[in-house]
């Protein structure tokens, strides 16, 4: 089984993730999840998410991965029962009490061990297997060799992060946020102190300890070969544009690997798309070696916000050949852009004459969220994305 697993901070992101190729999504409930500032899902939302995903034959996992304090224990049992009753496919857990509770309640949903548990060896994985775990989300520090041994010795489903932000610390083994800002990192309040800039030893030199993002594009095929089952993208608080782009890229890569049509040129194109989308550099981090200074960020980093996301397609009138789109960033008639589709490769497109909802011609689209109509011979679908054309795949072939 090869699964592309996407983050989803709310129902809109969930739908985009599934549409653009994720086989499963992971979401957080309003409580007990590690991204307290994501919008997150109440039980009704989770139920709807499961119905939506299951209709597409896809899966929903819910993070229950806080490290609970005494006051967090009340309500946990009922919460787990509720998740099970709305047909959540699995819960992602780091705490032993929640694992045992899952077992005691004899719930149908799967138990997945969170990356917060920092599983690096097969003895630890076997311990969790004895508690009923179906899947281990590996420590981000796990190397290729570590992963291979754990797979060989445990036969567990293994999930690994392939893209997105990294912690400086072992996940869960950091309370800098607690002490520096009084926000509990292991209950979803991490204030990302590791991304601050510091002085070092009382001089003015700036010290930083933040890692670059993770990007496993060059190693996906190898990861499939050594037994990774689920390929996880980080970022429940990311935008729909980010989610659509990243999931779309990895979907295409995985499919091309499976179909044996992947090429180095296509991989390079994908890397450029991903690096542009994230605004930050990304590297493979721990897979083949320990991170060096090249995997860290220091002052002067290139983190430029881009305005590539131009518009979202809301509707297409096939009879009149008119597309209705929602503006996100500035563009104008004559711009050469790209249509990013969830069911085919991105395609170049020249912005035609634009009209507002009253039929007035627009010189430019400059108001985010403005509804715009435009003639379009190429049939579009709802949730296609119009983006700035930065890379041309033909240049790579």
């Amino acid at each position, binding site marked *: 089984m090869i699964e592309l697993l996407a983050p989803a901070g709310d129902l809109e992101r969930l739908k985009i993730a599934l549409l653009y190729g994720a086989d499963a999504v992971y979401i957080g409930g309003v409580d007990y999840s590690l991204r*307290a*500032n*994501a*919008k997150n899902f109440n039980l009704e939302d989770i139920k709807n998410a499961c119905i939506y995903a299951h209709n597409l034959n896809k899966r929903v996992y819910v993070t229950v991965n*806080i*490290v*609970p*304090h*005494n*006051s*967090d224990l009340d309500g946990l049992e009922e919460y787990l029962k509720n998740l099970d009753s709305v047909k959540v496919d699995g819960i992602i857990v780091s705490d*032993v*009490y929640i694992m*045992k509770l899952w077992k005691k309640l004899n719930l149908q949903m799967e138990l997945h061990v969170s990356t917060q548990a*920092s599983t*690096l*060896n*097969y*003895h*630890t*994985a076997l311990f969790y297997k004895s508690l009923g775990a179906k899947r281990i989300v590996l*420590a981000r*520090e796990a190397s290729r*060799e570590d992963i291979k*041994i*754990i797979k060989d010795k445990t036969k567990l489903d293994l999930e690994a992060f392939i893209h997105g932000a990294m912690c400086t*610390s*072992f996940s*869960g*083994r*950091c*309370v800098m946020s*607690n*002490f*520096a800002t*009084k*926000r*509990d990192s*292991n*209950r*979803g*309040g991490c204030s990302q102190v590791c991304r*601050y*800039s*510091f*002085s*070092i*030893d*009382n001089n003015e*030199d700036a*010290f930083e*300890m933040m890692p670059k993002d993770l990007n496993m594009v060059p190693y996906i095929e190898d990861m499939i070969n050594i037994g990774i089952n689920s390929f996880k993208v980080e970022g429940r608080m990311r935008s729909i544009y980010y989610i659509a782009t990243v999931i779309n890229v990895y979907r295409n890569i995985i499919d091309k690997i499976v179909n044996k049509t992947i090429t180095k040129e296509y991989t390079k194109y994908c890397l450029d798309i991903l690096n542009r989308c994230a605004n930050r550099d990304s590297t493979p981090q*721990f897979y083949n070696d*320990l*991170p*060096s*200074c090249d*995997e*860290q960020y*220091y002052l002067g980093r290139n983190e430029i916000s881009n305005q590539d996301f131009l518009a979202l397609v809301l509707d297409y009138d096939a009879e009149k050949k008119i597309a209705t789109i929602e503006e996100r960033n500035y563009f104008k008639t004559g711009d050469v852009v790209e249509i990013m589709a969830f069911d085919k490769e991105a395609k170049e497109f020249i912005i035609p004459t634009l009209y507002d909802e009253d039929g007035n011609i627009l010189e430019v689209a400059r108001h985010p969220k403005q509804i715009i109509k435009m003639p379009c011979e190429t049939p579009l679908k709802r949730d296609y994305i119009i983006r700035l054309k930065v890379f041309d795949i033909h240049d790579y072939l």
Partner: protein
Amino acid sequence: MKNKFLVSINKLEDIDIYKKVGITTFVFALKNYSIGYENSFSIEEINSIDANKYCLINRLLTSKEIDDLIKLLPSINVNGFIIEDIGLIDSIKKLNKEVYLFINHFNCNYASINEWLNYVDSVFISNELTFDEIKDIAKYVKKPVIVHVFGYNQLMYSRRYLLTNYYKHYNLPYKNSVVIKDKAGSIKMHLIEDEHGTISLSNKIFNGKRLLNLNNILYFYLNTSYIPITIVLDFLNGKDIENSDEGLLDIPTIFKLGGHDD
């Protein structure tokens, strides 16, 4: 009371000094398998000590490392082991040694600790809890537990070489131990690196003397790393400690920001 203290050792010659003030039980960080301690010790050094002693293994281990370590465990002559990686529990139990679980930052409630107590002999309570939370844990756990009362709080454990990478990037002379401060000056901490990664420690010594009155405590733990023995003795003698605070004993951490719905 002094026999309830569990004291980490920085130098072997300190043991006799501690014994003179009534301390009977010591912790030795195991060389190559521990991180964040001022000193670590070989098996031969640990075996040479005549006292109640526990071997600390607080690194997260790869499969190769843990397999290598399991072969060494029978040769370590101690009362028990203090471990971070739960992959070691079974192997240590087979040796009929005590196991104390010290998963940094993870033992934050009595229910989870009670589950772990089905597998191990005792558990270290996490060091970022309030006094009331710790008190309740001690009250509701089914076996006596271990609580930090003294030492720098470990704030972060990274597998990355944060100092090596920094000095290499800027082509500056390497230091393995530094103090960093944020620009506003409100956050200050120590960073210490060795061949296994980097840890950060609080700027102030945690002084948890208030916790000494708790019941159902197996040991009160003193992590003496990077602290002169004279200051440790001052704590043991009930004296005031400079550059110390009570950590988060009176400061509940929050995890949701009021008013935000996104």
